[in-house]
C-alpha cells in the first residue's frame, strides 16, 4: 500500500473523528461565559516523508519490536506535515531510548517506598509501583497484543489511520481497551509516551531529540541563547534562529 493510497481515507477518517474527540477543556471552572472554543482544524495530509539520512540509531533498551512500536507511535503523535518535520524526524525515538538509561526511567527520582495504592484518586498524583521502563515494556506488549487481536498485525504494521485510532483509544482509556491491559493502565502508558515524545521533539539536541532544532524552529523558540535584553519591549518577531547548547544554529 503506497502512502498515496493511505492518505485520502485517512484525511476523511480524521475529519470525522476529530469532531468526536471530547473537548479537552483547559479551564476547569464553570465560568464559561467568556470562554471561546476554538474549532480544531482538520489535519492536512503529510507531505512526502523527509528522508532520515543519518546512520540509523541503534536502540540500547528497546527490543526490535518495541523499537518499531516507538517509531510508529511517535510518528503519529507528532506527524510530519505542512508545519514541518515531526517527532520521528526530530529523533524522538532515540531520545526516548536514551532516557531509558537514566535514573528517571528506573524511578530513582521518585519516592518509591510501599505500600502502594495504585487505585488512588488522580488528584493524589502518581501512586503506581511502575516506573517508565516497566510502563514501556508492558504497555508496548499490551498494545501489540491488542493490535494483533484486531487484525493479526503489530501496532507498527498498522496503517496510519488505524494507529491514530488506536492511540486515541489509549488516550481515552475506555473499557474496550482496558480489557487488553492487565499490567498497566492504557492512559498511564499513553500519557508517558506522549510526554516523552514531546520532550524528544522539544528538548535540547544534547539529549538526542529535536535534531536540527526542528521543534524549536516550528514554534519560534530561540533555544540556548537566552538573552533578550534588546527584545523585551518589542512587539516584533524575534529574528535570530534557534541555537543549541552545543552551539549549532538552526
Amino acid at each position: 500500500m503506497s502512502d498515496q493510497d493511505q492518505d485520502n481515507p485517512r484525511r476523511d477518517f480524521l475529519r470525522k473523528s476529530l469532531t468526536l474527540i471530547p473537548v479537552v477543556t483547559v479551564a476547569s471552572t464553570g465560568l464559561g461565559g467568556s470562554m471561546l472554543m476554538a474549532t480544531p482544524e482538520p489535519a492536512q495530509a503529510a507531505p512526502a516523508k523527509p528522508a532520515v539520512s543519518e546512520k540509523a540509531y541503534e536502540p540500547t533498551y528497546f527490543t526490535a519490536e518495541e523499537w518499531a512500536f516507538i517509531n510508529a507511535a511517535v510518528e503519529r503523535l507528532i506527524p510530519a506535515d505542512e508545519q514541518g518535520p515531526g517527532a520521528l524526524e526530530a529523533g524522538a525515538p532515540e531520545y526516548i531510548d536514551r532516557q531509558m538509561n537514566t535514573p528517571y526511567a528506573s524511578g530513582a527520582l521518585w519516592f518509591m517506598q510501599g505500600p502502594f495504592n495504585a487505585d488512588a484518586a488522580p488528584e493524589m498524583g502518581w501512586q503506581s509501583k511502575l516506573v517508565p521502563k516497566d510502563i514501556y515494556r508492558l504497555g508496548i506488549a499490551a498494545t501489540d497484543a491488542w493490535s494483533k487481536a484486531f487484525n493479526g498485525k503489530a501496532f507498527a504494521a498498522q496503517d496510519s489511520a488505524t494507529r491514530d485510532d488506536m492511540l486515541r483509544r489509549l488516550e481515552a482509556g475506555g473499557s474496550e481497551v482496558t480489557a487488553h491491559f492487565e499490567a498497566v493502565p492504557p492512559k498511564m502508558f499513553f500519557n508517558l509516551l506522549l510526554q516523552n515524545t514531546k520532550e524528544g521533539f522539544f528538548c535540547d539536541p544534547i539529549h538526542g531529540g529535536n535534531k536540527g532544532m526542528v521543534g524549536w524552529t516550528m514554534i519560534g523558540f530561540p533555544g540556548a541563547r537566552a538573552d533578550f535584553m534588546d527584545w523585551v519591549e518589542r512587539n516584533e518577531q524575534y529574528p535570530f534562529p534557534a541555537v543549541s547548547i552545543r552551539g549549532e544554529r538552526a
Partner: protein
Amino acid sequence: MKALVIATFALFSSCSVSAAETDLIKQGEYLARAGDCVACHTAKGGKPFAGGLPMETPIGVIYSTNITPDKTGLGDYSFEDFDKAVRHGVAKSGSTLYPAMPYPSYARVSDSDMQALYAYFMKGVEPVAQQNKDSDIPWPLSMRWPLAAWRWMFAPAVEAHQAQAAADPVVSRGAYLVEGLGHCGACHTPRALTMQEKALSASDGNAFLSGSAPLEGWIAKSLRGDHKDGLGSWSEEQLVQFLKTGRSDRSAVFGGMSDVVVHSMQYMSEDDLTAIARYLKSLPAVDPKDQAHQYDKQVAEALWKGDDRKPGASVYIDNCAACHRTDGHGYTRVFPALAGNPVVQTADATSLINIVLNGGTLPATHAAPSTFTMPAFAWRLSDQEVADVVSFIRGSWGNKGAPVKANEVADLRKNDMRTTSGDDLGQVTQRH
C-alpha cells in the same frame, strides 16, 4: 559567646618582642604584601612562604625557595644575607639567583623597608621545614655562574631611590612602589632576548611598562598612557578601584594579575594605591599619534535590528552578547565593556583568545567579595569561530585591534600554559 578577635598576623618567634619591633614586623608584613612574596614562594596548597612553586621559564622549570625562618629556609640568614639575596640577587651560598626573583626591581627598596621585611620574615612568619627543590633545568643551562654574568650586566646598583626632580611626592611614592617592591615591570615591561627587562624605570624610556610578550597564555598589557592598549582611558580613581577590588566600572581583572590583586594589591593602603595609580598615569603614551577611543554605533545598530551578517557577529550574539551586550558596553562593574577596552586591542591578541577559550573567574577581594565567572567556550567554538568572534570584538564599536586567524587560536589551544586560577592560593591571605 564572645566575639572573635582576628589578628592580622601571629608572632612565631619564641623570644619576646617589643612594641617597636611589633610595629616593624607589621610594616614588614605590609611590604611583603606589596612585594607579593607569597605569590611565588608558596606552592599550590602548600604552607605560606615555604616555596616549591614550579615556574615555567624558557629554559626549564625552576622552583621557588623556602623563605620561612626555618633552617631549611631563611633560619640562619643574617640581615646582610637577606639583603644580599633580595636586593643583589646573591644567595647565602654565594650563587646567583635566577632572575625570576625580581632583585633588579627590589634593588630600589630602601634600607629601612629592608629592615622591616627582615623583621617580618624572621619573626612574623611561621617556620616551615621544607627542603628546597632543584630546578629541572638540564645541564649545562643549570649552571648558575652565567647568571652571575647576567646579574653583573643587567641588575642595577643598589642605591637609595631618587625621587624625580620636581615630582609630586605622591608620584614619587608611586614610582618607588611600582619600580621597586611592586616589581610591575617583571611582567609589564618587555624583555630583551637575554631575558632582562628592557627598562627598569620611567627614566629608561618608553619600553618601561609598555607590555609584555605572552607569558603562560596571557599578555601583561601596557600600563602607559596609550588609549588603544594602555591606560590612557583609565582615570586614577578607576585604577585605584581596580587594584583594590579587581574590578572597575568597565574592566575586570584576569590572568596573572588576579593573583596580584588578591595577594598583594588589595592589602595596600588607599594612599599607596593612589600613588601607584598617579605614577602610572604619569607615563606618556608610546604611540605619538595616540587618540581617545571613538565609539562607532554601526554594529550596535545592526544587531539591534537583528542583522548579524558581519563576520563573527552571529558567534558574538550566540555566546557573548548576553553579558557584554550588543553595544559592547557590558554592564557597569559586573561584566566588562569590550568597546574601547585596551585589553582587547593589544597588538598580540593572546589574552582575548585565551579568555574566550578558557574563561576566567574574577577573584573575591575583601572590598568586593563577589566572584563572577566567565565560562569557557573552547568546547563550544571551533578555531575559526573563535578567530571570527575575537576579530569581531577587536574591530567593532570603534575598536582598532587587528583581526586574528584560526591558526593563532589553534596554537593557543595547544600551548595554553595557565596553571592556576589563583583560587588555590586563596587561603594564604585569609589566615594571617
